């Protein structure tokens, strides 16, 4: 029984979310990672920031109703997950996950706290944000990793960023938009399809 149950299985094929992803699935606060849930107090740990930008398709036209999901470490670079050896020290008030929905102009935004760096297998991961994008016409979920402009040395050593060809690496660095309404704000625009050098680099999933 046990043997049968643990037979090797092949994951199901991916599909697009299509045009009719339920609007009810997006609630106010879903894109706010500083709060574990809409009615929770914001975490006291870390520096808050806002990330905003657009999702665009070939030719630069905006993509409406794209779903973006952000996953990141807490302010000290930890995850509340068994794969993190320091999971028990992770911020209990930080989920690390949020979902944003692009408007008719293709605009999305997240609010979060800046993730910390961490060391794994002797290599240092620079502070980073993993973002998944889903939408109409995207049969496969695409994912990329975004880096902060304040850490050029850490970014230059990051084991994920350095897998990209050198001339594309700058494309995954967030734009510093300065303080907006008292909160440090970054910009990033996704181009799902375009020529090399303009199309957002994505990683295998």
């Amino acid at each position, binding site marked *: 029984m046990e043997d049968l149950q643990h037979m090797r299985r092949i994951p199901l094929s991916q599909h697009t979310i299509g045009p009719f992803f339920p609007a009810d699935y997006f609630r106010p606060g879903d894109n706010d990672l500083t709060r574990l849930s809409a009615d929770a107090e914001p975490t006291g740990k870390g520096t808050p920031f806002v990330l905003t930008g657009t999702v665009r398709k070939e030719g630069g036209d905006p993509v409406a109703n794209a779903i973006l999901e952000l996953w990141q470490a807490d302010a000290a670079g930890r995850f509340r997950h068994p794969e993190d050896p320091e999971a028990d020290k992770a911020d209990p008030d930080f989920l690390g996950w949020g979902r944003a929905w692009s408007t008719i102009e293709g605009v999305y935004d997240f609010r979060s706290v800046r993730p910390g760096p961490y060391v794994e297998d002797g290599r240092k991961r620079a502070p980073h944000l993993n973002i998944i994008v889903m939408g109409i016409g*995207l049969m496969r979920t695409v994912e990329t990793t975004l880096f902060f402009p304040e850490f050029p040395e850490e970014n230059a050593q990051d084991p994920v960023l350095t897998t990209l060809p050198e001339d594309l690496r700058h494309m995954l660095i967030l734009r510093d938009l300065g303080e907006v309404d008292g909160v440090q704000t970054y910009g990033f625009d996704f181009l799902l399809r375009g020529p090399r050098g303009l199309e957002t680099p994505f990683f295998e*999933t």
Partner: protein
Amino acid sequence: MRNDTRRRMYDPWPEGVQPTVPIEGYTNTWTHTPSQPAYRRPLTRTEVTGPADLWRKLHCGDSNLALSTTGKLAQGLLMEVTGRILDEDGRPVANAIVELWQANAAGRYTHALDQRAAPLDPNFLGHGRVRSDESGTYRFLTIKPGAYPVPVKDTWWRPPHIHFSVLGPSTLSRLVTQMYFPGDPLNDWDRILQSIGDPAARQRLVARQLHPAEVGVDHLGFHHDIVLRGRNATPEA
């Protein structure tokens, strides 16, 4: 040991399992699909982890799509869909968030973007979110969705299908897919289902209908297991 396990956790996708894109007759795939190949990266902690208690953010428990908030039943064939969320080793994935949405019996979505001239059912919203239990099982009661046309020059119809969005234990186990019904002739003509090259992979997207004697007189029964990418420890609550 821990590190070795992590490195082997995700094999490359087998040939023919992922859809071949862009898709002829699905216009948006020609403008939204990246033209460059995705870059292979090392898997670090960020990729093999995911939110431990996501249900605190995403409300779960809408497992009855067939019964509206006014207490009235939706139009159509009542059916129960159940199955297990599994990882690549066949281990149950507990506490996965399972989101599903579908058209009503006439093939229309309760959604602002669906303006097709087919009737809306005031007692059917067509979406729900549930959480898999300790055995990885999910279950929901709904009605069988209708087919609907795709408005392009060479008309094609989407066969009855249910959209699934599953948030498992890691970012890489994130899955968006669709479930189909056995024996529907439209399955063979569906450009989305047929974009998957491997017939066995297509077959895995088709639910198994349960014998009526097993299910009873209240509704039809379908079984559909959902295998996520990865061999994962399950995050603890």
